[in-house]
C-alpha cells in the first residue's frame, strides 16, 4: 500500500471513518488470514484469530500513532494472538504439521495444466513450510511471503533485527532442503 494512502487511512481510521476501516480490511484481511493459517495450520483457528485481530484494531484505533505502519501493526497483533492461543492450548507442533486438507482451495481461471502444476508446487512449498520450526516459519512468512522488511519483521516478533536476519537465512536453507532443491534447481524428492 502506498505510504501516503496509508497515512491518510490511519488518520481517517483514528477519526472513526467506516470507509477507511473498509479499505484497510479489504487490503489486509486475506494476507493476515493466509499468515495465520500458515502459522496455525488450521482454518478454524485462523478465522478466530483473524476476527480478534480486527477487533483489536478498531478498539485501539484511537491510540494509533499518526505515522503508524499498518502491516507490521496488524501482523504483530495476529502473531501475538497466535502465540497466546498456543500457550493457552499447550499446542504441540508435531500434531499440527499437517495442513488442513481444505487448504489451499483450487483457483478459478487457471487452465487444467496450469492448475495442476501450480497446485503441485504450492503443495510442496506448503508441506515444506509446515515442517519448519515455528520460529523459522514465522520470519519466512513475514519477509518471504508478506513482503515485510527484516526490520519490520523484527518489530513484529519482538527480536533484534540481526537475530531475524540470521533466522531468515537459516529458514531459507531449511526450506530449500525440505523442498528438495539445490542451488536454485528443483530436485525431485525420493518417494
Amino acid at each position, binding site marked *: 500500500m502506498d505510504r501516503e494512502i496509508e497515512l491518510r487511512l490511519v488518520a481517517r481510521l483514528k477519526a472513526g471513518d467506516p470507509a477507511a476501516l473498509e479499505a484497510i*480490511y479489504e487490503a489486509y484481511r*486475506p494476507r493476515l488470514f*493466509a499468515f495465520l493459517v500458515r502459522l496455525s495450520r488450521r482454518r478454524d483457528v485462523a478465522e478466530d484469530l483473524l476476527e480478534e485481530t480486527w*477487533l483489536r484494531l*478498531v478498539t485501539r484505533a484511537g491510540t494509533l500513532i499518526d505515522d503508524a505502519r499498518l502491516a507490521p501493526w496488524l501482523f504483530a497483533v495476529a502473531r501475538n494472538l497466535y502465540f497466546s492461543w498456543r500457550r493457552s492450548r499447550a499446542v504441540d507442533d508435531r500434531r499440527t504439521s499437517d495442513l488442513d486438507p481444505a487448504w*489451499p482451495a483450487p483457483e478459478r481461471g487457471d487452465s487444467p495444466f496450469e492448475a495442476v502444476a501450480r497446485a503441485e508446487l504450492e503443495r510442496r*512449498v506448503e508441506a515444506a513450510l509446515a515442517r519448519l520450526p515455528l520460529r523459522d516459519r514465522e520470519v519466512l512468512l513475514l519477509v*518471504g511471503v508478506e513482503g515485510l522488511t527484516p526490520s519490520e519483521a523484527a518489530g513484529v516478533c519482538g527480536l533484534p533485527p540481526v537475530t531475524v*536476519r540470521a533466522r531468515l537465512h537459516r529458514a531459507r536453507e531449511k526450506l530449500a532442503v525440505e523442498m528438495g532443491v539445490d542451488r536454485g534447481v*528443483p530436485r525431485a524428492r525420493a518417494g
Partner: protein
Amino acid sequence: MDMTTWEPGDAVDEGLSALRVHDASAERVERIRARCMGVLAQRHEKAERRARPLAGGTGWLEPALAFSLGALYLAEAVARALAVYACR
C-alpha cells in the same frame, strides 16, 4: 554475506511466490466486518454524546445560571456592607 538478498530465480523464492493469498469464509468475512463496524459506530455515538452538551441545546444554561446567582450574591453582599458602612 548479506543474508537478506535473495537471488532472482532462486527456487525457494519461486516456491514462496507461488503461494496464493487465501481468505476466510464469506460468512466469517461478513461477521468480522459487521462487528468492527458496530464497534466503530459505538465509538462514534459515545464521542457524539460527550460533545453534545457543549455543541448547543441547553448546555449553556447551567454555567449561565451559576454565574448569575454568584453575581447576585456578590452584589447583595457588597450592598449590605455599604449599608453597614453608611450607618456608622
